[in-house]
């Protein structure tokens, strides 16, 4: 099977929470149904209710059929018949219809069970393959790009496989320019060799572009080595270094950093919270500060031109000052707000700490390859993307590597 991108739902599957919305409907003569549907689809298309079928057929007692049709959405309020558009009112008058308020499911079903529940209320459509807003929402070009981003993350995780210890990898990208913003692996423990990876993978001043490439045979082998199911202790041991999978494991570690020598330039030789996503956010913020120095805050960067504030310069040339202002205005417009609009690719589903960090940093979409049954917060243990109280909501997708990669 080929690579697949599937949306991770933000609510438990099969639970139709009864979220409904009122519409204006009417019972009609079966012979009129076709004509009316055609007229109404023009007069009042159901823009936000595409999953709802226009017509409901119910069998009443004594084998009689009842046909109901949605005339239009409600306008004045959930239970109000007021505000019906003129075109629809004309249809009502012409065919002497008796409008009433009907309740229909507000959202499309995300599972077969939910869909069956919904249809008891009003018939809806259900597309399991499209997975609500799943694969179908990406163009082939987008899908190709998403898959190559995930391969970049998988490659990073593979590179980190020194001493058979796998690490999680995080790649933040700007989908509009298709540039890598940050790419890192877990930095909870700094075993020998991993420094090289993190250095090479730290944020690039000149944005690099991800190239499209098909997985070669070597690449495939590496991916395969990345992922075995948690079958035995032996197998899971090689994942102990994947910080989000085993966030508490550091508490039990006895050995590898008995003597902690702190390298120059490195504040920590190990840090139990430096999971890949946290480090990636830190690098993205560092890039932001460097590329878009804050002119009004001197504590932020050493890059600003201190001469701007001197009175001599102020008087010198109004013209150049205006130019300066326009330039900084432009920078201000181009400057991202945190990671708004950016996507992150993770090999493993993030833990609660990382998932919430990504909420704070306003990531747009999260793609992960493998679920985290121990501590995953985007589907496995918690479902942060479904927490309505949060002030930001990202979409979450699982990217399934092709079966030749993960048999």
């Amino acid at each position, binding site marked *: 099977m080929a690579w697949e991108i599937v949306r991770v739902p933000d609510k438990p599957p099969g639970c139709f929470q009864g979220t409904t919305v009122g519409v204006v409907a009417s019972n009609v003569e079966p012979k009129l149904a076709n004509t009316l549907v055609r007229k109404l689809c023009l007069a009042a298309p159901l823009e936000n209710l595409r999953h709802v079928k226009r017509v409901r057929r119910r069998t009443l007692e004594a084998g009689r059929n009842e046909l109901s049709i949605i005339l239009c959405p409600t306008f004045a309020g959930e239970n109000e018949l007021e505000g019906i558009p003129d075109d629809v009112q004309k249809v009502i008058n012409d065919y002497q219809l008796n409008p009433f308020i009907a309740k229909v499911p507000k959202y499309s079903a995300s599972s077969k069970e939910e869909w069956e529940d919904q249809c008891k209320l009003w018939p809806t459509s259900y597309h399991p393959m499209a997975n609500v807003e799943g694969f179908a929402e990406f163009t082939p070009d987008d899908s190709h790009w998403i898959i190559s981003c995930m391969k970049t993350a998988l490659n990073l995780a593979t590179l980190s496989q020194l001493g058979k210890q796998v690490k999680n990898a995080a790649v933040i990208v700007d989908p509009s320019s298709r540039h890598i913003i940050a790419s890192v692996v877990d930095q909870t423990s700094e075993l020998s060799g991993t420094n090289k990876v993190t250095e090479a993978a730290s944020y690039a001043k000149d944005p690099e572009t991800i190239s499209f490439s098909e997985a070669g045979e070597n690449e495939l082998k590496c991916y395969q080595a990345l992922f075995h199911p948690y079958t035995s202790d032996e197998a899971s041991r090689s994942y102990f270094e994947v910080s989000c999978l085993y966030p508490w494991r550091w508490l039990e570690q006895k050995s590898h950093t008995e003597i902690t020598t702190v390298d120059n330039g490195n504040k*920590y030789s190990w840090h*139990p919270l430096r999971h890949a996503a946290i480090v990636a956010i830190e690098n993205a913020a560092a890039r932001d500060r460097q590329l878009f120095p804050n002119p009004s805050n001197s504590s932020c960067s050493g890059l600003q031109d201190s001469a701007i504030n001197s009175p001599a310069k102020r008087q010198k040339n109004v013209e150049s000052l205006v130019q300066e202002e326009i330039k900084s205005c432009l920078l201000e417009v181009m400057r991202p707000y945190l990671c708004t609009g950016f996507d992150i690719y993770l090999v493993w589903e993030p833990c609660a700490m990382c998932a919430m960090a990504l909420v704070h940093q306003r990531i747009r979409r999260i793609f992960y390859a493998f679920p985290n049954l121990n501590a995953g917060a985007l589907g496995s243990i918690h479902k942060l993307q479904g927490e309505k109280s949060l*002030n930001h909501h990202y979409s979450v997708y699982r990217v399934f590597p092709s079966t030749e990669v993960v048999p």
Partner: protein
Amino acid sequence: MISATSEFTSSDLAFMEFALEQAKSAMSNLEVPVGCVFVEDGEVISSGSNRTNETRNATRHAEMEAIDLLLERWQKAGLSLPEVTEKFSKCVLYVTCEPCIMCAAALSILGIKEVFYGCANDKFGGCGSILSLHEGESEQPSGCPRGRFRCRGGLMASEAVGLLRSFYEHGNPNAPKPHRPDPSLSKARATVPRGDAVIAKRPGKKDLQGGIPTPSVPPEEAFVPTSQLDLDTG
């Protein structure tokens, strides 16, 4: 886990005062006013306040700042990993606002002993409000979940809420700019000499950092519900 306000000791109050000082210093730096201190054996060993705006890193909450200080210092002092875990297990955190989901998870990972917080965080709280991460690891066959810590809220909550309210009343000056620049504004910018232009201040604008119209009534209750405040921090 969250008990009444009456049982706090005078040293609890003193440590929270210290945390509130940190929150005030954050506010003077135009940061969301949340602060904290870590206490070991009755002594403050680390403190922190929000630096999300300055760093442009929205994960730099007070707790994270204080934790990083500790890890850096302990490693420089040559402490081994087991020694550090031992130290964290004796730490008590005083923080002006309930730790968010991220911070609560982090505190659980570190295995700290106890948390005292001021006001609850109805939108992001990870110690009971939204998730209960202070309960530690989920479903352990061995029985004893790792990363569980005691947690009590309501310690000087009104002071904590008061700071947050006064911050949001003035608007978050580091709020994002509108997507399309206001032409009248950029014109104004271009003509005002830089030294006097405080263009970043735009009060009244609802910001993504969490500004929401704030109630004008001063808090009276000891444990104020903060549902009207959008606490993006803590």
